[in-house]
């Protein structure tokens, strides 16, 4: 087999893998503050993409559509937090797993009926012409994914480190009770994390849609792989999700090339189950000491 083709497959796979990493990063944001994740995150990606498409069709330029989409994502994230997560967290139960699945199902059905069941193209001003870098063809569209992913992750990490609100976020992540005693409202911080997570999901939708098209089921495969990335990397390592995301993207691109496209999902799922068996806290996760 030609090394150039393998390289090509690996690079475009890895760029795609950055989208998984971005969605997985959204899981980490909410897991840090509340030890919960939104199981309907894929539907959030999808409805935000549809909403952004509507904005574009209404004539909004790209630079105005993106913030609009992010805002919508944040709002939907807040809806999930209020309706699905807060009560369960107050009761210290794991009801949020079921409730976030349910809210996702509602979003799915709403999208099916509002925007239709068909896949639609997502117009973008960024060109899809390949450019030649180091012997590999990459499109500007694919590069825009990388730029967008690193930009938002960088911004959020800066926010967490440099602003007072961000420090409050870190404080709640480190110790919820201690943060509460210092006068930080953990409820508001959890809301903030769900808002941010929603925005991150929306951006993932906006970045990936021009490549994959927009449809109600666009995120169902995406989300499984994002889950795999989050669990394999560990739910507390932002650096880990990027590495694992790119690795998984490259791996599945090669798998679908050699085994057939039906097996595309398999490497991620097998990787996940293997990681669970060998390192339950994730490859980059920290083991916790049990205390009684």
């Amino acid at each position: 087999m030609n090394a150039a083709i393998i390289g090509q497959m690996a690079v475009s796979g890895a760029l795609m893998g950055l989208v998984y990493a971005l969605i997985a990063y959204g899981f980490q944001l909410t897991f840090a503050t509340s030890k919960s994740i939104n199981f309907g995150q894929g539907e959030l990606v999808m409805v935000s993409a549809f909403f952004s498409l509507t904005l574009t069709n209404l004539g909004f330029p790209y630079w105005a559509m993106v913030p609009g989409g992010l805002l919508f994502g944040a709002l939907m994230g807040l809806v999930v937090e209020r309706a699905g997560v807060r009560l369960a967290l107050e009761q210290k139960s794991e009801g949020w797993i079921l409730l976030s699945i349910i809210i996702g199902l509602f979003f799915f059905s709403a999208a099916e009926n509002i925007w239709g069941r068909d896949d639609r193209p997502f117009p973008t001003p960024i060109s899809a012409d390949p450019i030649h870098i180091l012997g590999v063809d990459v499109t500007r569209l694919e590069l825009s994914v990388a730029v967008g992913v690193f930009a938002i992750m960088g911004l959020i990490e800066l926010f967490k480190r440099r602003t007072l609100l961000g420090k409050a976020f870190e404080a709640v992540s480190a110790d919820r009770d201690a943060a509460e005693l210092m006068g930080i409202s953990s409820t508001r911080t959890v809301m903030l994390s769900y808002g941010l997570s929603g925005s991150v999901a929306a951006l993932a939708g906006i970045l990936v849609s021009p490549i994959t098209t927009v449809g109600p089921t666009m995120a169902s495969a995406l989300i499984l792989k994002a889950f795999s990335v989050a669990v394999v990397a560990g739910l507390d390592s932002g650096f880990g999700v990027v590495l694992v995301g790119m690795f998984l993207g490259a791996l599945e691109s090669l798998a679908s090339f050699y085994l057939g496209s039906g097996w595309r999902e398999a490497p991620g799922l097998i990787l996940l189950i293997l990681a669970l068996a060998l390192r339950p806290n994730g490859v980059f996760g920290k083991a916790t000491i049990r205390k009684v």
Partner: protein
Amino acid sequence: MKRILLLRGAELIVFAFLATIPLLVVNPYALGLLTLLAIYGILLIGLDVTVGYLGQVNLAHVAFLGLGAYAAGLVVTRLGLGMVPALLAATVVGLVLGGLLALPALRLEGPQFALATLSFAALSTTALNELEGLTGGAQGLSLSRPTLFGHTLTPPLFYWLCMVLLAVVWMLMRNLLASQWGRAFEALRDSPIATDAMGVGTYAHKVAAFALGSALGGLAGGLYAFNFQYLQPQSFTYDLMIILLLGVVLGGRKSLWGAFVGATVIVLLPNLLSSRHLFQIFSGLGFAGALAAGVRGLVKKTTRPFQALAPVVAMGLLVVGGLLVENTEDWRKAIFALMLFSVVVGLPEGIMGFLALFLAKLFRVPHAPLPEPADLDTMLPVRPADGSALLVLDDLKRHFGGVKAVDGLSMTVRAGTIHGLIGPNGSGKSTVVNVISGLYTPTAGTLQLRGVTLPSGSLYRVAQAGVARTFQNLQLFGELTALENVLVALKGVYRNPLPMVLLGLARREERTAQAEALALLELIGLRDQALVKAKDLTYGAQRFLEIARALARKPDLLILDEPAAGLAHPDVLQQIEFIQRIHQRGITIILIEHHMDVVSELCDTVTVLDGGRIIAEGTPDEVKRHPKVVEAYLGQPPQPELPGGTEPLPA
């Protein structure tokens, strides 16, 4: 007895009624629905084992339905075998694959577990789709219903077969869940650490429960295959999984009846959605119910505003939607979502949970009388307190990164004594206890119990070796009664193998166990509260119950981790008396305590720790006067030659 009769009677009436339906009604459509009801009943009973008893969100159950269906289908089409081998194969496929998935997945909790099961389900759909040579892929697999012992199964006969299987599954599960197994399943949901420390293998029980539930999923799959006689991978996806969860949650978790009610709802749902008129009636009823419950909850202040209002809003959306939308079938998923949302938020115990409360009020059937307590001298014979070395720690170390929590500890605990372990906060007492009981693996050093090296790093195996402990932060099984808490830990009574338990032939040992558990409850003064849930006991009673539960292990060594912490003075006095009673039975005790009066009153020997090392050892009086101990607790004594040395010490 009356209670049992009522329950059994209700079961008998329902099953008899269901069995006679084909004789009275000849509507093939209705018969089809009833057959499906039986199949989904088995499926949901299986799902309830993980979702209800283990308390984990299991998203792989639909995969076991599919794998079981394909297994049965392939046994018939490829191997040409009959109904019985096909159903057996379906069950075994569920059991084995369920066990294989559970081995890695059940090391996880909560979200990671749900993710792992979700991934398994996706993987199995992929496999069914892609292994075209075997399964026919997306084209599907057609099969015809094989004969059973030479009889062709007409729809009524097949229906009866499904009903008989449901009844058998029902009976076996009822026996299992009422036994020590079922109690263990519930206990490990409340506190996995405590089940391990009580010698009930947490992990093994979880895997067994998951495999069992999956086996039922496989069996239901086999019946599903023979019912529809056509299989497609797309039938077993996430959508169906959501509906199954709806069934279990709506029906009521931890309840066979709940699974039955849930199955009924699932079977009737498509019919409900196909007629707009019918849908409007039911959504209106749902809205009225949510409104009534919400208002009642708000007025009586039993529910939070969100819990009362959210279901009303969700049901209101259903009603408004039902009036606006032309075709309710298009909004199927949104309708499921709103219904499920209302139930999860507003009726977390499900229909059966709600009904059970209601019926309990209506009939007020007393609990079956408990046996007389067993004789303590026979069940827990007095051991000789010969003062020989029971537990020997040699140069024990446990470091956490750079923190030397325990740093070179050598100590001998003599048989029949109460050995105190004291020291200031952070001196390493709890770490020592956690190393002895197997929660932590020692960094270096050895531990020997009666000259035999203790297993390290496994609560379960240390418990099996004869060490029992209590917990500083209570680790009771809150949802179980005081009696059941003790029963879970009880050693040496449950001997009957699983098949006997399943067939309900293990009742006699259950009575023996109850008698022994009651004797232990009597020892700590809780006999009259045996049937109260642990979470409803007073704080003092909970501390006492922890000791009774540890005693149920009939241990050689009992470790009491701050048994008087947070107790009011009268309770402390009682606690001292209980510990003395246990001591009189010759059981060796390690006592960690902050109350010096308790230590002085009880202990034969006291070891004082500071900074992970021993600073003094001896009788309570010797230790109290030891200068290093005084220093560790009160700080450096004032040095006369230093300026300001005569000032009082800071508090």
